[in-house]
Structures are given as C-alpha cells and as structure tokens.
C-alpha cells in the first residue's frame, strides 16, 4: 500500500527516479555513490516507503525533479513567498559570504515591508 503521508506519493516519486536512472543509463550502485543515499533506503523506496528528508532532497536535486510535484492533495494555488524565494537564491550563491547574505536579506526585507504596506511615498 502506498504511504501517502501528508499527500506525498512516494511511489510516483520513486518511479520518477527509476526513469531518471534508466534514461541516464546508470546503475543503482552509481546512484548510491553519487547521492550518498544508501542501498537500503533505495530498497525501501522501491517498497513504497517514504525516504528520509535528506535522501528526498538529495535525490530530487540529483534527478532535477521537484518533490512538490508529487504532493497531490495540496491545492497548487499557493505560490512561494517572494522573500523566501529571494533568500533561497542568495543563500545558494557561492560568490556571497554568509554575512553579505544576511545584510542583503535585511535590506531587501525592509524594502519589501515598506513597499508592501504602501508606505513609500515619492
């Protein structure tokens, strides 16, 4: 039986991984080595079990797929909050030091709050 905890469909996610492995003509040994996801985790996923959060994230990144696409119960009308998206991009930028990221986040947040509430009067 598929475990659809919180609407996540692990079978569908696993099938997407299987297709990725096949299309890249890789072995599961190579997948395990590249992603550091253990053989037992992959085996459990084949049995319909949900991977742990770290394995889910790593496999999603490795395959270039979005785990949110396998959540079927939530309405997809929720879009990512702007600040979260900006913060994510800044933190992922290897050219920025952590203190620079923090400073830019603070400035952007202040500007966003200002504009959101219509306080900026020119």
């Amino acid at each position, binding site marked *: 039986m598929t475990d659809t905890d919180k609407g996540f469909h692990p079978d569908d996610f696993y099938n997407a991984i299987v297709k990725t492995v096949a299309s890249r003509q890789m072995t599961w040994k190579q997948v395990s080595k590249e992603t550091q996801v253990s*053989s037992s985790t992959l085996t459990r996923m084949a*049995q319909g079990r949900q991977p742990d959060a770290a394995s889910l994230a790593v496999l999603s990144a490795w395959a270039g797929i979005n785990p949110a696409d396998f959540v079927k119960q939530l309405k997809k009308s929720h879009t990512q909050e702007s600040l979260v998206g900006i913060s994510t991009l800044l933190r992922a930028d290897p050219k920025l030091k952590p203190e620079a990221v923090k400073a830019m986040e603070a400035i952007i947040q202040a500007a966003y709050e200002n504009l959101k509430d219509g306080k900026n009067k020119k």
Partner: protein
Amino acid sequence: MKFERGFKAHANKIALEVRGELGLAPHAPLCPWILAEHLAIPVFPMKKLAEEKPCLVGDVDYLSHAGSRVFSAITVFDGCKRIIVHNDSHAPTRQRSDLAHELGHALLMHPPHPPFCSDGKRMFDKKLESEAGWLGPVLLIPNEAAHWAVAEGFAEVDAAQHYGVSLDLLRFRFGVSGARMRRDRLKGL
C-alpha cells in the same frame, strides 16, 4: 563468475551499512528476518501460504518433503514491490542463507522480473544470481565479522553457530575474506 570491478567491496559496504542502520556492530550476527522488516519486504514462509490457501496444501507438502531440494526461496514482484516466499521446511541455517540471498537481490536493486519464462522454466539471470549469491553470505558474515571471529579465536563450528550459518558457508567466508589466511598466520602455519 568474474564480478565487475569494485563489486565485492560494494557488497561488503552494503553489509556494514545495514548493520549500522540496525544498530549492530560490524562483527555482530545479522538476523535476515529483521533485515527484511527493515527493508519493508514481507517474508512469507511457504507453510503459512498453505494455511491461508488450503488449495496449496498438496503442493507445499510436496516441496516440504520429496521436492524440498527443488524450492528454496523466491522473490515475487508486484510492480517494483517485492515479497519473498521461502521454504520453511529447510534447516534454519539454510533458511537464513536463502533469505539473505533474496535480500541481496533487493539491496542490489536487481530489476523486477516474472518468476517464469514463457516455456515455464524459472527465470534465471546468471549475473544477477551470482551477485546475490555473493552478497547473501556477505550480509551474514562481512569481512570484518570473519576477521573478528578469527581474532577472538572462535573454532569454525562455534563461529558458524554464532552467525547462524552452515559450516560450508562459514568456511567459504573465512576463505574469501582472508580471515583463514590470517588465522593460519597467527598459528604460525
């Protein structure tokens, strides 16, 4: 059969990995039924199937006695999902070995396949069977376990009992892991 480069090391790594996940030391005995549960793979003793399906009683009885050499264990697929059926009329050491072999297929992510070919014969892929045939015993006695048993001075019979395996399997693992060579060196042979 010659394995691809790195396979034996990969097999030993898997054996140590699952032990770690189960909270076991590298040299600790491994219960294949507990491993199956950890991998979320249902395991059905053959006789239990007969209890649930009375129409199988005759067949199970045959495989338990006159035909006991014919059937050890099999993995049945539902899509990608596996269940394992094993012959529980066999000796406990044989059952452990058979189950470890099937779990080896699972951990190596060997692809799903029907149990029989179109001509009714068992589906048998030599490469995959050889790989599982290697990993199964390694799951039961990884290299570290074999060397530990030697270092602790276990007699072969006692080590076989400790790991729940046959003497043949124990001797095989002692040989291929280098543990026997180490033991002989320690004895000054």
